[in-house]
């Protein structure tokens, strides 16, 4: 399998993306921003469409549009309330621009398919390099903001009272999601972004109570699903993103319904007494 360059690239890019998506995804789930992540991937599509229209590699369009869109969302809704309205508003606007791009260009079909559903088997060496650079940037930002972002995500009001720059942290978070989404689109495409950016972290949250443990589990799940998906897709002629998404989904069901039966979440005894 690894004799083939395209498989090497696929595994390289897939590994990098899985690690990043597993880490950033934790914050997406923690901040209940899965709609924002999903919206950003659609916004990214509009950017990719624009990039193709101007003859540039789609990834640059993705990065530009998601960063701008993400910053707009963060600026419009610094507090958690009503975020979905602001997100939807920005999403609709930017998708509208995407519609404009699409109407101006005639040769979209294959590009559109790979952006929508991921074309990890078509990743070039320069794509892998770009993915690596983007990942290193994300990791270095996270290394700096990990603690403040975690605290601001868990207890926004106290963080604000302590003088932490919660608004700036919100924008940084959105930029992180924007860049992570842009590189993840290569693997699973715009429409299936949840399977890497949200579900692994959601599963991991069910399994651990300490953030660094959750992140490790989240990355492990994303990696496992990506590798397994690539492995299967090498032998079966079906899209890689389908396999990745299905593996993650099955795991989610297992944890949610089987694991939780064996080990239900502890509910405090006192809360039963209060009800009496």
């Amino acid at each position, binding site marked *: 399998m690894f004799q083939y360059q395209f498989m090497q690239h696929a595994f390289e890019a897939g590994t990098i993306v899985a690690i990043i998506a597993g880490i950033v995804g934790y914050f997406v789930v923690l901040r*209940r921003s899965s709609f924002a992540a999903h919206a950003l991937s659609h916004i990214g599509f509009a950017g990719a469409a624009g990039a193709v229209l101007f003859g540039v590699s789609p990834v640059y369009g993705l990065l530009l549009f998601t960063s701008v869109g993400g910053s707009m969302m963060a600026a419009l809704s610094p507090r*958690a309330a009503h975020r979905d309205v602001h997100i939807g508003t920005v999403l609709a606007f930017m998708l509208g621009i995407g519609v404009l791009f699409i109407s101006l260009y005639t040769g979209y079909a294959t590009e559109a398919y790979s952006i929508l559903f991921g074309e990890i088997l078509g990743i070039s060496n320069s794509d892998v390099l770009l993915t690596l650079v983007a990942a290193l940037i994300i990791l270095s930002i996270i*290394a*700096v*903001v*990990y*603690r*403040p972002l*975690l*605290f*601001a*995500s*868990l*207890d*926004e*009001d*106290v*963080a*604000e*009272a*302590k*003088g*932490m720059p919660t608004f700036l942290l919100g924008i940084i978070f959105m930029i992180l999601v924007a860049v992570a989404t842009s590189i993840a689109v290569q693997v699973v495409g715009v429409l299936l972004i949840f399977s890497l950016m949200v579900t692994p972290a959601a599963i991991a*949250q*069910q399994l*651990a*109570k*300490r*953030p660094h443990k959750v992140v490790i589990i989240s990355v492990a799940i994303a990696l496992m699903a990506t590798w397994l998906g690539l492995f299967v897709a090498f032998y079966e002629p079906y899209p890689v993103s389908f396999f990745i998404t299905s593996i993650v989904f099955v795991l989610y069901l297992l944890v949610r319904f089987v694991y939780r039966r064996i080990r239900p*979440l*502890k*509910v*405090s005894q*006192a*809360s039963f007494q*209060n009800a009496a």
Partner: protein
Amino acid sequence: MSTIQPEITTAPVQSKVITAEKLVAGYEDNIVWRDASFTIDRGEFVAVIGPNGAGKTTLFRLLLGLQRPTSGTIKLFDSEPKRGNPDIGYVPQRHLIDSETNVESLELVHLAFCGHKWGFHLSAKTGRKAALVALEAVGAAELAHQSLNALSGGELQRIFLAEALVSNPSLLLLDEPLANLDIRRENDLLQLVNNVVRSRAVTALLIAHNINPLLPFLDKVIYIANGKVATGRPKEVLTSEVLSALYGVHIEVLHDSRGNIAIVGIEEHHGDE
């Protein structure tokens, strides 16, 4: 109208924690309350009482440096309140914790200790130790490794209090910590806050709706209503005269046999008690 000013105890200068002089608070063009002049001394347990929307949280925002006074002065530890004062422990009214938050309590308290620090840290030992100490101080050490979404209301309030105490503040600001607690948990939490106040000489301001559970513990009351502020000892502020002057309508303060207070005549102003 001018300030309602019952006797305020004079105290030596060093022990004044909060001083307000003709303080006026508001947002943009709206004035929330005016002419507040009072002093809070070190180690006092103070209730901030008043109807919904009277501006109780506004007072906290002024103290936290999140808002500037419209006019007048407010001093905290002899200087102007600034944002991010590590000497204040804040327990806000709302928290983002819900049934999805599967994070252990120790982690939240630990983050309150070191969450404002940027950059990577290799060893979390001192932070976790400080967090455990704070949890012990509120009698919640056994909850350290339990997930926040598995805790009852009363237990959560203890964790939030530990969160505020972990940085060893001199001033505690608690915004409606008793909401959603039954009478027994209310009393437990108040005993706890009182212990912290007395044992650490910490000053505490607590916003509440119902004054009665607090009466056994209070040194002072700040009563905010109808755009005015009255401050003083409970016996001095919670009188028919003072409250009538505050509300501008006839108010009667009735006492029952056990010292509980019923304030009659403010039904239009207060929500449910």
